[in-house]
């Protein structure tokens, strides 16, 4: 309770509102400054060890932080790729020096991280990637093209998979590399909402020192699947986010709602947001008991991505004719439309659920 109050009071006193989008030059800077403040209050990554700027807090405390963060309507986390996806991977597979080198800078948003997975010919079929890592004396040279790289337009570093040999799954190596170096060209891509939330990365001999390989060369696929379950499941989309949106939806209904059919949809959105919250508590209990985030995270990914769209569609339907006016709800709606696509399309997730959870043949 004291932790919840501390977070609530800090956010009430300090969280800025109305920052420009983090996918603009000014907005990116403003969001990084906010991350600095969070870091100084040791709130940037509460579940991390104190040595890296965290508080050694439990996953339940992290969920509390997230609930308060979203309830306070605080800025989108510019560092989320690093904080929520790369960091768990480093805790599981990184060397002590990788942790020391990257985590504090990540938590202060000194380094903002981009993802480098998809390629023009490797989307859902991620193991088909062609961009290569070629061995040189003290590291690797990267060649090829990555695309849909989230945050790459304004990021400093990137992490992802590269082909180091011909074997489909066992020929992949997981690397971290600097985006500000010769041999890297970043071309921002305007998304459906007009912002450059992702980019193409062209690589022509960019260098990766040996110490920036995660795990052993050739182990990348196995490690990346761990990252993917974080992206799908617990860490990227905390329930606090959907509870906060559902509360805004209920407020909207109170002011503008009249149609009983819409009332039922509002109720369903709230029920699903609560279901995601309770399911997450259950997942945390399982992890605390020594379990792992496995194929169950695929079910979570389908669930929250569809919930996010339902929340925003319902809000727009409540708004009636004025729903066309660009608003926070239309922004959120356009953002939500990406959910069933990124982090592994929902069709791929359904295959995973059917094959790994239900035991149907491949």
């Amino acid at each position, binding site marked *: 309770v004291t932790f919840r109050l501390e977070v609530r009071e800090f956010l009430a006193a300090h969280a800025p509102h109305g920052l420009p989008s983090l996918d603009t030059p000014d907005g990116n800077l403003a969001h990084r400054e906010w991350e600095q403040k969070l870091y100084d209050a040791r709130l940037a990554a509460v579940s991390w060890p104190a040595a890296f700027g965290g508080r050694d807090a439990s996953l339940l405390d992290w969920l509390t932080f997230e609930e308060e963060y979203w309830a306070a309507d605080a800025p989108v986390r510019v560092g989320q790729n690093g904080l929520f996806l790369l960091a768990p991977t480093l805790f599981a597979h990184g060397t002590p020096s990788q942790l020391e080198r990257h985590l504090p800078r990540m938590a202060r948003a000194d380094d903002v991280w981009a993802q480098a997975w998809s390629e023009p010919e490797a989307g859902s079929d991620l193991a088909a990637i062609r961009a290569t890592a070629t061995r040189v004396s003290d590291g690797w040279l990267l060649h090829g093209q990555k695309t849909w790289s989230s945050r790459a337009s304004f990021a400093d570093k990137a992490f992802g998979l590269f082909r180091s040999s011909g074997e489909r799954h066992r020929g992949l190596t997981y690397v971290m590399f600097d985006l500000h170096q010769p041999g890297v060209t970043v071309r921002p891509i305007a998304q459906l909402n007009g912002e450059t939330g992702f980019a193409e990365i062209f690589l022509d001999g960019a260098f990766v020192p040996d110490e920036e390989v995660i795990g052993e060369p050739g182990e990348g696929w196995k490690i990346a699947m761990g990252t993917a379950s974080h992206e799908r499941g617990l860490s990227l989309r905390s329930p606090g986010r959907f509870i906060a949106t559902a509360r805004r939806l*209920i407020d909207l*209904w109170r002011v503008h709602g009249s149609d009983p059919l819409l*009332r*039922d949809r*509002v*109720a*369903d959105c*709230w*029920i*699903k947001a*609560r*279901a*995601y919250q*309770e*399911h997450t*508590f*259950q997942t945390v209990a399982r992890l605390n008991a020594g379990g792992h985030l496995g194929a*169950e995270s695929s*079910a979570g990914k*389908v*669930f929250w991505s569809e919930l996010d769209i339902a929340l925003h569609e319902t809000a727009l339907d409540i708004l009636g004719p004025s729903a066309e006016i660009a608003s926070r709800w239309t922004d959120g709606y356009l953002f939500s439309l990406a959910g069933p696509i990124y982090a592994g399309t929902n*069709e791929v*997730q*359904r*295959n995973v*659920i*059917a*094959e790994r*959870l*239900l*035991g*149907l*043949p*491949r």
Partner: protein
Amino acid sequence: MNPEQEQFRASLHSLLDASDIPAIARAWASGSYDSGLALWRKLSDLGVTALAIPAEFDGIGATATDLVVAFEELGHHAVPGPAIESVAVLPTLLSLTASSGTAFADATAAASAADGRDATELTAADTAPSPDASLRGTAADTAPNTGTALRGAAADGAPRLGGMALEWLPRLASGDTLATLAWPPHVPFAVDAGVAALPLGGRVVRESVASVDPARQLSSIDGGQFLRAIDTSDEADARVAAFDMGALACAAQLLGCGQALLEQSVQYVQQRVQFGQSIGRFQAVKHHLADVRIALDFARPLVYNAANSLLPQDISAAKVAASEAANLAARHGLQVHGAIGYTLECDLSLWLVKVRALIPAWGTPSWHRSRLMETL
């Protein structure tokens, strides 16, 4: 679920798995209750019927979570009979009102005085088939035992409902009798009143309305003095709690039904070969069943959370989510079975219609959504 609850679930599952419930359910549907009543005696040996009954009435006084565990298994195996009413609703109502004083008794007396009849007579006359008679499956005669006991209680000046609790709760706990009742916003029909007793002055006014689920026999009832009295008494809270326990049990039963439908469907699509391969290899089939798994996975935590909090809004959320998940399991389950699933000979049919029967029971999804929105 704690280890004891896991063990309880496992015991229930192994009993029910070995009991050929589809045959029992089909017999029940055709009006042969013996095998079903024998099964209920075995369930009471495992403590199922005593779960919601306090120790002072020979019950177990278990938690609502224990109750949810039991109802998931009852749904999982399509056990016939007025489970929600006998195991969740009436035990909750009677044990809560037993300890809450005489308001119900006073109100009942006042209401019947207004009818120009003696409260004692009325209770005796309105009491439905006796528990003993009903256990034998003969629903014709009225209840000398119960009537006598109630007259005695009234003559002593003891609280009417307290007397009823003493009379009924130990019987319900022991599995000697099944009982049933219904009141708005639940349907005006009581399930299985032909084989179960109607306590609290309930009365069958028209027998045997067909249900979409042949294993549920519906009777139009007059809830009797119970409803008229309790509406105006402090015991309305007990009525709400009992109704909610029914909704929670119903949600758990729906979850269990959904789980059974999913399991049977997963098994079937691996056996059924078309186009030279098992149809479980086709993505169209996989995705249907994956969606069922997702719906059940996310409804279940709501049901267990509601059992823990017992807040009306949590119970409503659980009932809505479980109804939706079970409905999806029924729809997709039937679809992946194809025509064989649309036959009475296929056991799937037992669950398909039970889901449809339970969705509107103990508060329709719309009613629960509406109540939920009022609390938000």
